[in-house]
Each structure stands twice: as structure tokens, then as C-alpha cells.
């Protein structure tokens, strides 16, 4: 699944690095809002599984931080789309993310103890890295509404923090 999620995001990057002639493929604001919200929901779901499964305090604390932060950011995103009267629009990227995440959760659900902790945290590092890459190269540059762009930019800073935090926890598990 890891490979799949990488593939989904690799596809995202391909779109992003494509020449400007393909600007028509840039996601619209309603699609961007949907992708960002979906990406957040995925990490909340993974966090819930970790809180339920892990016995490691560092891992559980990290998962609680993820749940709290991503829920807060998603709430902000919902408030913003309501204010802007934008209806988030499902799209292939959101669908690919959701499918990949479902497979990752199924894989994680079979693991226990240290194996689970390691797999969860390693996926958190990789997942945040990929989402941050997509935010930087595709979603933020494509956003046309200034408030949406600003929310994505703050989100990027938060998720870059998560990436470093996850790397720190991964280092402690070694």
C-alpha cells in the first residue's frame, strides 16, 4: 500500500511538474479543498488506530497530537469553505489517497507491538513527506483564493512540524 500511496502521489507530482501548457489539469479550489481535507482525515484515522493499538507512550502521544492537530485544521478548512460558499469536490487524487490509506490501515491492523509502532511511524514520516511535497509543488501554487492559499501554507508549516516530530519518534524506536 505504501507503494500505492507513493504511486498516487508520484502521479500528483507528475501533474505538478508538467509544462504550463497543461495548466488545465491544475486542481480547482473545490478540488484542492477536498484533497486537503481528505489527507487530514486519513491521518486522523491512522492516529485512531495507533491510539487503540500501540502500547508505546511516545507513539500514542504522537498519534494523539496528530488526531488533535488534523481535526483542528480540518475544522478550519470546513469553516473556510462554508464562508467562501465552496463545495469541496471529489476527484481522482482524493480517491487515490483514500484507497491507498484504506490499504495501509488494513496492513497496519494486522501488526502488533513493536512491529506496529515501527510501521505506523515510518508511514507517518513518509505520508507527511508526500503530502507536504504535494502541498508545496501543486496544491499551494494552484490555489486561487487567497484565504485558501493561506490556510494551506499554515497547514504546510504544521505538517512539516509533524514530519520532524515523526522522524524524532522513529529515531527513538530504533
Amino acid at each position, binding site marked *: 500500500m505504501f507503494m500505492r500511496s507513493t504511486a498516487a502521489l508520484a502521479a500528483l507530482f507528475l501533474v505538478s511538474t508538467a509544462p504550463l501548457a497543461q495548466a488545465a489539469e491544475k486542481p480547482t479550489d473545490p478540488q484542492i479543498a477536498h484533497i486537503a481535507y481528505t489527507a487530514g482525515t486519513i491521518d486522523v484515522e491512522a492516529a485512531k488506530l495507533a491510539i487503540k493499538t500501540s502500547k508505546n507512550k511516545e507513539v500514542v502521544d504522537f498519534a494523539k497530537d496528530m488526531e488533535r*492537530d488534523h481535526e*483542528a485544521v480540518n475544522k478550519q478548512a470546513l469553516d473556510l469553505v462554508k464562508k467562501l460558499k465552496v463545495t469541496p469536490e471529489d476527484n481522482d487524487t482524493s480517491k487515490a489517497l483514500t484507497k491507498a490509506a484504506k490499504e495501509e490501515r488494513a496492513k497496519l491492523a494486522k501488526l502488533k507491538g513493536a512491529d506496529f509502532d515501527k510501521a505506523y511511524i515510518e508511514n507517518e514520516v513518509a505520508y507527511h513527506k508526500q503530502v507536504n511535497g504535494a502541498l508545496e509543488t501543486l496544491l499551494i501554487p494552484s490555489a486561487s483564493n487567497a484565504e485558501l492559499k493561506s490556510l494551506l501554507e*499554515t497547514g504546510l*508549516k*504544521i505538517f512539516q*512540524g509533524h514530519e520532524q516530530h515523526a522522524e524524532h519518534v522513529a529515531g527513538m524506536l530504533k
Partner: protein
Amino acid sequence: MRPLLLAPTLALALIASSPALAATIEVTIDKLVFSPVSVQAKVGDTIEWTNKDVIAHTATVKGGWDVMIPAKSTGKVTLKAAGAVDYFCRFHPNMKGHVAVVP
């Protein structure tokens, strides 16, 4: 007459014996940035962080103080030792600040 004289004397003695008034230094957190990023303080001063973000942060010194700063709230620490320290947020280690504490 005597108590009247004593009162101002006592008050004076109290002021004289207490060190310079401790100050509160305000630091704001907005969009994951400590502002000002670097502050100067004296031992006994308090630093108070005001968090404008919708997510919680911490101000943490490795091997030192660890202040929780909930979302849309404040957190504070009273500085007990002189020295310069770097602090960061445990939840978002990309957030960094600095405090120079003089005796």
C-alpha cells in the same frame, strides 16, 4: 504618632529589600512563529506566550522547562536560572525561539 511614622518606614524597607520588579515578557505565537523570536530577560522574570493558533504548542528547552500552550490560550514560565537557551515546540519541532537570561 508612633504607628504613623512606622508605617512609611516599613513600606520603604519592603521596597528596598525586594529586587528590581520582575517583568512579564510577552511572546506571541501566530502561524507557528514565535514573535519576537528572541527575547532578553532577567532571572525572576516571566515569559508569557499567547497562542493565536487553533492548535496547541509547547515551549520546551531540552533538559529544562516545558510549557504547554493550548490552542487560543496562554502559557508561562518564570525564569529561575541565568544563561541563554534555545527552545522549541515538541509538537512542531520546526518552531524555534531563544531566551537570553541575565542574572
